[in-house]
């Protein structure tokens, strides 16, 4: 009966289920499975700034610092036993080798003492250079399967990233667009976590066939809470 249980202990967040597994949609953009002590995060796109700088766009080199600081905060809050980074953890194949020593150390500290999985993504198909953790193509735990790109058609228990979902509503003549978790109870597609990651509307054709449209919910990320909005309220574009 609980539409939205707000866990007052940490931050208010929404409790959802993915193929029967209970999970918390955290407004900071991570998914936490309390029974499994498992934290999933997707599309970190670390070193995106330097990746673009190589091609002449000198955007501020602080994205890795910003992304890691936010990641550290959620890991400290949940103290998960397992962390799964759902792919595109680095913006390109050499991203990990460009990592500043300071950030490498910070990442190593986060990894140590827990099971850390790097799921291979399209941006980073190979294991990140000189970093601990295990690199896998996909990972099955309990009734869940973690992979980077959502597989075609409906797939119960799949937790994926890649698409960078966002949702848009119009209220009082104004359009509000936010990153979101997109789920229909069977599958969950996670928002991109990286500081420089853009997003794609869940109503875009790239998502067609992935969800049961009647039960699609966009868990839109607010400043300090999640706003759960049914598919019927969402706007394209």
């Amino acid at each position, binding site marked *: *009966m*609980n*539409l*939205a249980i707000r866990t007052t202990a940490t931050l208010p967040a*929404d*409790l*959802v*289920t*993915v193929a029967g597994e*209970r999970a918390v949609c955290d407004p900071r953009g991570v998914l936490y499975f309390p029974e499994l002590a498992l934290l999933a995060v997707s599309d970190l796109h670390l070193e995106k700034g*330097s990746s*673009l*700088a*190589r091609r*002449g*766009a*000198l*955007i*501020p*080199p*602080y*994205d890795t610092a*910003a992304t890691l600081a936010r990641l550290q905060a959620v890991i400290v809050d949940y103290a998960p036993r397992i962390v799964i980074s759902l792919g595109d953890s680095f913006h390109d194949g050499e991203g990990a080798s460009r990592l*500043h020593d300071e950030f490498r150390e910070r990442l190593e500290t986060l990894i140590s003492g827990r099971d850390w999985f790097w799921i291979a993504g399209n941006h980073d198909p190979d294991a990140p250079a000189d970093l601990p953790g295990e690199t896998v193509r996909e990972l099955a735990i309990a009734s869940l399967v973690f992979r980077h790109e959502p597989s075609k058609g409906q797939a119960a228990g799949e937790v994926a990233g890649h698409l*960078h979902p966002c949702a848009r*509503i*119009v*209220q*009082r*003549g*104004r*359009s*509000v667009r936010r990153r979101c978790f997109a*789920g*229909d*109870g*069977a599958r*969950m597609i996670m928002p991109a976590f990286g*500081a*420089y*990651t*853009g*997003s794609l*509307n869940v109503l*875009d054709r*790239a998502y067609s066939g992935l969800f*049961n449209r009647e*039960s*699609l*919910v966009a868990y839109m990320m*607010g*400043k300090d809470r999640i*706003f*759960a*909005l*049914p598919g019927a*309220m969402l*706007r*394209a*574009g």
Partner: protein
Amino acid sequence: MFQFSLGLAARSRYLWRVTAKPRPTDDSAEIRLPEPFVRWFAAKGWAPRAHQMELLARAQAGQSVLLIAPTGAGKTLAGFLPTLTELAERPKRRPGEGHRGIHTLYISPLKALAVDIERNLGKPVEEIGLPVTIETRTGDTPAHKRQRQKLVPPDILLTTPEQLALLIAASDARRFFEDLRYVIFDELHSLVTSKRGHLLALGLARLRSFVPDLRAIGLSATVAEPDELRRWLVGQSSSNVTPTPDPSPQGGGKSCGGVSGKNFQAVLLAEEAETSPSSLRGGVRGGGSAQPIQPMAGLITVAGGAKPEISILDSRERVPWAGHSARYAIPEIYEAIRQHKTTLLFVNTRSQAELLFQELWRANEDALPIALHHGSLDVGQRRRVEKAMADNALRAIVATSTLDLGIDWGDVDLVVHVGAPKGASRLAQRIGRANHRMDEPSKAVLIPANRFEVLECRAALDANYIGAQDTPPLLEGALDVLAQHILGTACAAPFDADFLYEEVTSAAPYAGLDRPTFDRVVDFVATGGYALKSYERYARIRKTKEGLWRVTHPRIAQQYRLNIGTIVEMPELNVRYVRQGKVTGYGGRVLGKVEEYFAETLRPGDNFLFAGKVLRFEGIRENECVVSSGGGKTQIIVPSYAGGKFPLSTYLADQVRAMLADPDRWHTLPEQVEDWLRLQKEKSVLPKRGDLLVETFPRADRHYMVAYPFEGRLAHQTLGMLLTRRLERANARPLGFVATDYSLAVWGLDDMGALFAAGKPTLGALFDEDMLGDDLEAWLNDSWMLKRMFRTCAVIAGLIEKRFPGQEKTGRQVTVSADLIYDVLRSHEPDHILMQATRADAAAGLLDVSRLADMLSRIRGRIVHKRLDRISPLAVPVMLEIGKESVNGEANETLLMEAADLVEEAMGAGLAGGSE
């Protein structure tokens, strides 16, 4: 001899037109026109005007000149006369001799204007038999023609500021411009007020360093501070200042009034600190002067032609308290259209244009040809309207700004300005440009949309009568523009930072730029200028062993060329017209563009007003907003546009305050407005000219505070933001505010009147200037406005690339949005040069901070508090605005919460399968 005029607006059809009877002139006797000109004039029965000969004399003496003249005074010919006479006497090119470079560069803000000049300069050049080639170079010029222009340059090149930036960034720039003698800036007053003007000023500085004795000629409408434009035209570095006597043949302080007929005189002003950029006088230091001398171009002012006949509509109807539609006056406007040949109707915004057009057609019983023209309409559509107008096929045209409009305005015999003009000079320019017969008065009617606008129209009319000008002061050169220019300079050839700094500070907008800031901008161009020096290896420009900054990769120059310019549009979608229900598939006519954020608020089936049609929104397809024929719905939405809203000028604001304070002047106002002010005097108080009136009163279950600073909507919005923060801190529990051009209302739960009376806080403390410190800073950092300005700065500075049409929205995943960059930069390096540029832009632009600061200092100790038990007559207009304004950008969370709560309330449990 005879006179002729080359009117700006009349160029297309009346290129050389006799305006008065022949009359001998002696002042210009010393200046000789070359023989072919004299013969040609004689054949036509014409003669040059005094200011044209005067400009020729000064240019020949090596001087740069600013010519201020009204429309129809032959400004353009004056500008080209030095060029044409010089080219006429140039020796023929010998066989085997290389091609000569560009002799004269003409720069106009409008592509269309350049094309028009080419057509109209060509004819006399041919008739006189001058061996002169004239060509345009705009964004539309085909590549093969550009290529050829590089190999065989024309004598006169007509172009735009963006094209100049491209030309000077080319590797052959120095050679291409080595023969340049003159550069002519048309419509200089409109070029200099924007970042476009900053880029152009830097381009001019570049040209001057290619050709030190280059002469610049500026053509301008009347402005408040001509000296700003005079400085803009010449180099500002102190090393080439020469305080010589006036080099004009007539000497200083002379007037040649009356030479060219009544209502028309050229006044030659005394010039104290004249520069002489010619090599003859160059290099001589202005010795001994303690004050730094700011060099200026010479000035020739031609007093206006016939004064326009302006009146304010004294309506039979009731003038509304608030609003901007002027709907009440439609029958009277329509009647005026019927009584005139061609009426030009100006409005302030595109939304108002759409509304007025719709209303006029509703009233159009005679089916008169009435057209619509604004900047968002499809270009083809605009050109058709302009052509119909030139052919005198239209009876009326509803338009936004003069610059949106093409060149030839047909026989306009009435200008109607709907809504207040917001500035005296704006009004004068709009009316002036509509009239191209400078010896005949133009006729204009002002239609105030509400009662305050009546006061404002009256003030503008009085200002026009006395010739008062309130063009905005020029701003300091923007740093994002400088970054673009520095990269462009490096794209042309490696540069020395010391030389470039000298050159940049010779451009008037950058004369005050300090060296450390300049170096930071160079650093930004090279590696992004971040405190974290991690991009050294990706540098775009790098210092060579010889100490020159050089582009690291040819790709950098290619990227630069694609992103040149300072006009950054809001993301827009094409409006494509299809059959109903036919969202997919292709084809259909493009009607114009709407801003993306507007299209995003529409739902399929919604009706909205655009291009004079009621359209039905079908959906968004890639970068297009697909529509079909609408109608039948009662609710029709009018798109809003971000730009185009000008705040009330400081001058007019002061005049309005003066009028309020002086009952003797009220008799010039319509009776209903006079009654309104009289009632205010009885029930509350009318503030003295320098005072700030603050009224407090209860209404329903709220308490209100209304202040009347008359400082324009932007400054009032900023003030509203800051006041509510302060009232919140004083526990007055404010709930919201609304701002108009004239006043500001704040409402809350507590009786603010009682709080002020008890000194908790005092009004003096509430309105203290210190609000512009920390409060402003704190609010600004979170403001959506700052994000919007950052995007513009980032694009201009070359940090992110322009978004081109055709780039699909799915690209969002890949590109990094300016908002995300802003967030990261703000938390990691808030003092970055680009953040600094953004804040400067915001303070000068959307926030109008300097005006707010002036106001706060003006009203110190002069606040009049009036506690009332009910709303006052003067407060009605702003109170009517409450609830009309949409929630601003910061309320997004609230909107989300509303939507989510709505869902919870309606659906209760079991919203979705995903929840327990």
